[in-house]
Structures are given as structure tokens and as C-alpha cells.
């Protein structure tokens, strides 16, 4: 590996963030290399989603350094600078957030054409390729309201990819889905990671995190308790808290059942 491909694409150093009186992040250090798939796991309210939102400047921490693809995110003062960053960092939300007044195809091409000023024909072609990739080619002219949750989430992923991002953030993308459709979304993400897309996932799908991650990060109370390979975190950790959390979720069979669906 050359130095450039191995270079850190995301680097958080001692990031502190609070909303009013509530301290959400209490000193986060995290380094993610290009091409890596990193899963952030941990109990609710531990600051997982907030870490993602710091990375694409949806929230600004009080202190600490954040570097994303060569940009010092914590030093961005203007909204226009944050917008430039967000064009390069894709994010997929728990609730899909598709635009209900536009067809699937228009959802995907809107931002590249209007925001990036991309060529229309080329973007439509790209959008159709992406739809094929997420196995929804026949739904190009449907409206979001006519799709199932899993289908909408796959469109949301295609929409994020159409911006040709340098990395993609997945914020609990399967949490709002019924178990039957979780599998089809995970399948798409797995494919993406195999293609080498740098991905950061906040997830409760333990089996999935174990399978696709290069690194797993465990957070609790605004701190990173431990990080390491999936093998380390899921099977050979000495930390009793992590063992309890991981055992409680995946040992119960929930992850296993979900992961097996529709793949």
C-alpha cells in the first residue's frame, strides 16, 4: 500500500461536544483510513450519531480537532464551507428522508444536477446504474410513498452515492425497518464496502458489523471505550461492559435472524 491510499481520511482528536448542559462527546479520538469500513456500536445515547454529525459538520464541537479528507472541519466558520464538505461526504439517515414529491429517479438526480451542476444525461445514466446496483431499476418512476421502508432506504443510499462521495456515513439505517427488509439494505451496504467505499456505520446489527467491519468502535457515555478488529471486540475483549453489551444483543439471536433474511 502506498502512503496516499493508506492515509487517514477521517481523524478526530479529543473532540468534546455538549448540547446546552448535556455533555454528549467527552473526548473522542478516532482515525479512519481510506477504504475502511468502521462500525460504531454502543448503547443508545452514547454519542454514536453525534460522531457522524461532527464528521459532516451538521454539528460543531466545542473543542477538539476534526480532519476529513484534508479539511479541518472544526475550523470551518462559514456555512458555505460546511456545504462544500457535505458535498464530499454522503450520509444516509435512519428515516430515509426521501423527497416525497419527487420520483425515485428525481430524488437521486436532484442534488448532483442542481447542487454540483453535473451534466443531466450523464447523471440520469449514473442514477439508473445506481438503481440497478440497489436492485430497484423497475422503481425509477415510482414515488417514495409507494415503496416499502427497505426500498426507500436503498433509494436513499443510491441518492447519497450519486454525489460521488469520498466516504459515506450510515446512521442506524436499518433501525426503522421491519425485520423482513433489513437484509436487503444490509446486502447493498455490504456490496458497497466490498467495492472499497470508505464507510462509517452506526448500527445495532452486531452480526453485520462483525462481518463487514475492518474496525469496530464501542462507545459509551460520550467516550470510546475500546476499538479494534471485530474479532477483538466481539470475541476476545477483556472489558466486561462490552462483553455484556455484545452478548446481550447478538447472543439472543436477533442479529443472526435479521442478517439471514433475504440475502
Amino acid at each position, binding site marked *: 500500500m502506498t502512503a496516499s491510499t493508506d492515509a487517514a481520511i477521517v481523524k478526530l482528536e479529543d473532540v468534546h461536544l455538549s448540547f446546552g448542559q448535556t455533555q454528549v462527546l467527552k473526548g473522542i479520538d478516532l482515525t479512519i483510513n481510506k477504504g475502511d469500513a468502521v462500525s460504531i456500536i454502543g448503547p443508545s445515547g452514547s454519542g454514536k450519531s453525534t460522531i457522524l454529525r461532527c464528521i459532516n459538520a451538521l454539528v460543531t464541537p466545542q473543542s477538539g480537532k476534526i480532519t476529513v479528507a484534508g479539511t479541518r472541519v472544526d475550523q470551518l466558520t462559514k456555512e458555505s464551507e460546511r456545504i462544500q464538505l*457535505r458535498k464530499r461526504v454522503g450520509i444516509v*439517515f435512519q428515516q430515509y*428522508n426521501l*423527497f416525497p414529491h419527487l420520483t425515485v429517479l428525481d430524488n437521486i438526480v*436532484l442534488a448532483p444536477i442542481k447542487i454540483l451542476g453535473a451534466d443531466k444525461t450523464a447523471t440520469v445514466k449514473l442514477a439508473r446504474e445506481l438503481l440497478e446496483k440497489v436492485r430497484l431499476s423497475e422503481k425509477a418512476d415510482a414515488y417514495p410513498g409507494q415503496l416499502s421502508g427497505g426500498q426507500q432506504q436503498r433509494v436513499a443510499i443510491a*441518492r447519497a452515492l450519486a*454525489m460521488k462521495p469520498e466516504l459515506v456515513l450510515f446512521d442506524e439505517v436499518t433501525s426503522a425497518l421491519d425485520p423482513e427488509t433489513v437484509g436487503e439494505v444490509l446486502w447493498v451496504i455490504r456490496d458497497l464496502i466490498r467495492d472499497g467505499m470508505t464507510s462509517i456505520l452506526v448500527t445495532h446489527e452486531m452480526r453485520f458489523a462483525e462481518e463487514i467491519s475492518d474496525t469496530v468502535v464501542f462507545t459509551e457515555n460520550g467516550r470510546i471505550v475500546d476499538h479494534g478488529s471485530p474479532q477483538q471486540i466481539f470475541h476476545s475483549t477483556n472489558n466486561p461492559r462490552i462483553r455484556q453489551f455484545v452478548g446481550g444483543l447478538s447472543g439472543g439471536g436477533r442479529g443472526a435472524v435479521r442478517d439471514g433474511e433475504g440475502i
Partner: protein
Amino acid sequence: MSMAVTQTPKTTKTSSRVLRYVGFVAMPLLVVVWSLVDLSLGKELVEWIPYLASGFSMNILITLCAVTLGTTAGVLLGLMQLAPFWFVRLPAQIYVQIFRNAPALVLIFATTYIFPFEIVLFGNYLPFPDWVKAVIGLAILSSAYIAEITRGAVLSIPTTQWEATKGLGFSRLQALRYVILPQCVRRSLPPWMNVASSMAMGTSLASLVGVHELMHAATDASTAVRRLDFTIIAYVVVMAAFFTLCYPIARLTRRLEQRFNAG
């Protein structure tokens, strides 16, 4: 592709048919039958119809101008009320609060007496007719209503839609233009229709400041003819005319609503 259009409940269908019969059949029928029974009355009416029609064309003109002007200004004011900067927000808020609570007649009187009867433009004296002043009075009122409708519609869009646009690198104005406002159109159509009909009916107030419109024409006619039955029939004609002005607005809006619902 087409979704099931929300079925209009049977009761509203029947009631709208009844309404149509009253407006388009019963009232004209009353006028025709009465005129035939008493031919001297019919003769007077036929003589005055062109005069009434010339008045009515003024109502249509004032309505179109006031609604167009009011909608344009109202949408802008509504968006200004939501601006992040107080020096944009505050003037709009003050304007809306003052004029939303002003009676239409007061505004029409005010514009009639505040504006001069002619304006000097590059040394030329241009007349400033009373009907234009009435348009401005009604436009001020409708812009205040429509500002509130616009503000409400924008606020009713879930914040997750804003979040999605932010994640894709939209600026605030781009998000408004491409994602938020298109969704507001459908939501604000029914209240917009109410404002448009009120403005159409409000045009009759312009008669009180001497604008030659339908009410004014009917009063002229009844004063000239001095027959009680003619006075009654003249005002029935006025009612039927206002019905034909307002009813299509309601129908058009309903059709648009259904088309948007299908989307």
C-alpha cells in the same frame, strides 16, 4: 405510477352538486322566469345587463390583480418571516400582524385616500385610478394572509427533510426552492383558495369608494329604475355573478389538489 386518488366522500359530492344547481341553474332560472312573467321587468333587465356586465368585468380585473400581487408578495413575506436574520424577519412580522387584522374595507378606504389621484413620472402626469387603489388595498390584506399560509406550510414540513437536504450539500435557499416549497404548494392550496374567494367577494367593497364594479352598477341601476322587483332581481343577478366568479376557483383548486395527491 398513479396512486389511488382519495375518494371524495359521497356527501360532499352531493352537496357540491346542489351548490352547482343553486348557482348555475336556480338563480338564473329565477331571473329568467320572473322576467318572462312580467315582461316590463324583463325589458328593464335586458337594458341594464350590459351596464352590469361592464361592472362585473371590473370585479374580475380587481380579483386577478389583487390575488396575483397578494400571492407574490405574501409568499415572499412568509419566507422573510422565517429568515434567520432579525432585520429581515422583523419587518415582515410587523407587516403581517398589522394587516392580517385589518378589515378589507378599512384598507380600501386607506389606499383610496393615501395615494394621490395622479402620479408624476418623468414629467408626465399619469392617472392613478381608484380601481388600482382598491387592488392595492386587497393585495395588502391577501399578502398578509398568504404570508401566514406560506409560513405555516414551510413549518409543517418535517425537519428531517431539511436534514436530508443539508446532508446532500444544499444551501438553505436551494433547499427551500427545490425541496421545501414544492411540498408546500399542495399543503397551502386549500387555504389559498379561501383567500382568493374572499378577495373575489371583497371586490364588492370597492363600490364604496366609487369604483365602477358590479355592486356599484347594480345600485346605479336600481336607483335609476326605481322598482322594488327590479332591485331584487338586479341583486340576484349580482349574487349569481359572484357565484360564477368564486365557484371555478374552488373547483380548480380541488382538481389541482387531486392531481398533487396522485403524485
